[in-house]
């Protein structure tokens, strides 16, 4: 398991997030599944972790913010 996958697991492990957005953490043990999840929160978390890549540059933050905003905008029912 990579560092990003462990991070994904740890963030998705959040009880409140699980309750609010109704997902089962155990279904998302790899990035691929998480990225393609129909659960919007799982997919957004996966995108943040995958795309930010540990960067602290504001330009990267802006770019990823727009990505996830658009993703939620496009997929939120």
């Amino acid at each position, binding site marked *: 398991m990579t560092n990003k996958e462990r991070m994904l697991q*740890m963030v998705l492990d959040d009880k409140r997030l699980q309750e609010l957005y109704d997902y089962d953490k155990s279904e998302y043990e790899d990035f691929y599944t998480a990225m393609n999840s129909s659960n919007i929160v799982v997919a957004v978390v996966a995108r943040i972790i995958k795309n930010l890549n540990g960067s*602290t540059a504001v330009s990267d*933050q802006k770019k990823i913010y727009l990505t996830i*905003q658009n993703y939620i905008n496009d997929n939120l029912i």
Partner: protein
Amino acid sequence: MIIQRIEINNFRSYYGHNSFELTNGLNLIIGSNGDGKTTFYDALDWLFRTDDTNKMDTKYISKKRIEELSTNEADDVRVAMTYEHKGKSKILEKMFHFTKSYDDEVNTSNYTFSLIEHDGVERILNDGRDFDKDLPYDFRKFIMFKGEDDLNVIQSSNAMKILVDNFSEVREFDSYFEFTKYATAQAEKARDDAQRLDRKNEAEIKRLNQTISTETDILSDIEREIENKQNEAVNFENLLSNIKQSEEAAKLLVSVNGRIEQLSKRRTEIKGRINENYTINLLDDMWILLGFSDIAEEFSTKVSELDKKRRKLEQTYLFTAGQEKAIKKMQTDFVPLPVYIPGQKIMQEMLDEEVCKICGRPAKKHSEAWEFMLHRLEEYRDSLKVPEEEEISPYYLNNYIVELQKSDNTLNDNLADITKLRHIIQERIALNNRLHNDVRKIEASLETELENKKRILAQTDGLSEEQLLANFDKISKWMDNQKNAENRVKTLKSKQVEHQIILDDARNKLSKMAENTPAAIYAKIATIIRNISDAFKTAKEDNKLRLIHTIENEANLFMEKLNTNDFKGTIRIIEKVNGQGEAMLINNDEARIFNPNTALKTTYLMSILFAIGKLLSEKDKTVFPLLFDAPTSSFTEAKESEFFKEISSLNKQVIIVTKSFLKESAPGEVVLDRNRLNSIDGSIFRIEKKKPFDDKKLGTIQTIISKIK
């Protein structure tokens, strides 16, 4: 990483070429004071410096070698380490050239720092700074330790961050958390911008936004105050932990001082009650008479004897005198002729006429006959006198003995007073003796307390009594301050919850208001991103806690091994608000053990280091050696042997420079205690000063190495 060989050339006392062939296990380098133990550690410390500091410091050059060199002659200081890392053999080598000038100055030059890698037959020369790739700079503080004080790596300012950054289950959390904060702010701004278009609910939106803004500010203030108060609590805790070790001693000292004060007071009071003004009592209170009863008794006896004697003598005298009187009376009764014959007138005629008219013969004046007649006349005249009873004169003319007797009677009367006096004196002396006895007892107790005080002060790491007492005052004050800060944090946290509820409520209402408006999607996006941000924050904290628990668990396992047959407690690590870590030992009742003995502290700190070493190994898929300079100074011999035995069984490369296992064979002669060493598995080196040497001349000091096993 396994260190295979360490070579030290002309580095301080390591004159010429010196080499240590090390094994993958315990390596003990044993030497006495000044034999080169710390120099060995310093040589490696110098070699590991990848920041170019102290590159060619002349203090590293062997004095002996300098003195030996002729003008313009040169040599090298060199420290090299051959090690195996991830299947590759490498040599890290640092050296510089030194030349002795004509004026005996030493010049340095040609500094080189290289990392030579052998890849099969190929020899690749790299910059020595590449060593950081094999042993990252931050990791070195977790593998090299100088003395027992250096073992508490957790408490250094950035230790926890290094540990989290390098060894936690998930790394680089910070940047992700920072991003989610940024994204949340952006999403909420987008929502607010979109909601401004909603004219219908403008006032309510404005109010809710106002509430959100106010509550955010309040929460921010609360958070800041919580941080400040937590820091305050930590600061007081730090201050307390610094003096906590002396708390018990200070408490004892205060208690001992209290007892000393009480005992001194009692002693003064009792001493005040002791009245021994016997000189004054002798005369003023007639105590001098105390010894008089015996004299009086003797006097009485003697007076009695004298009186008896007197009475006897008097009786005898009276008896004798009576007898004499009776005889005399009898004698008087037998006078043949009455004195009145012839009568007085005739007698006088005869005398005048100088003739005896009885016998008719002349009797001249003053003749015998005439004198006879005169005598008879006188006798007659005497007989005419009224006869007086003849009294017997007293035997004793003076009544001295009677006087003595009277005195004796007086004295006997006074003896009753003297007996009373005797009781008074006896009581006084008995009381004084009792008081003296009490004083003696108090003084014995005082002496014990003063000894206790000395012992307490001798065990307080050089703290004076004043400092210790000042600490005692500070402890209670600081504990109060710490408690106040902690209580304030509790209050603030509960306030924080209350305000968070208000904030969440305002946010929810705002989101709800956005429903069925163009701002709805922005509100939902903002909510999702905020919730994700919160999850990242929680995960970041969990990640840190998991690491801490992992280290704790591993450390406790090592502690089990290293501290056999002794009290272990449970190792606990906490992170303070300032980011520093703190390792502590917890009793089974969860109470912190504030003053573990140095050996116990060393053992649990070393257990933590072994635990970190294990994490390091797991992370880099390689093991790293641990290097300690004199880590067990506070251990007893038995504990030390047991400790080294356990370390040798850990299957980990540990290099320990120590003066353990040495014993004095003769005054000034130190030899290896081979019996104790036999139980240790691993390589053992003995380093010592080459003899003879001049104890005033550093240039004669040279460390020699012998491999013992």
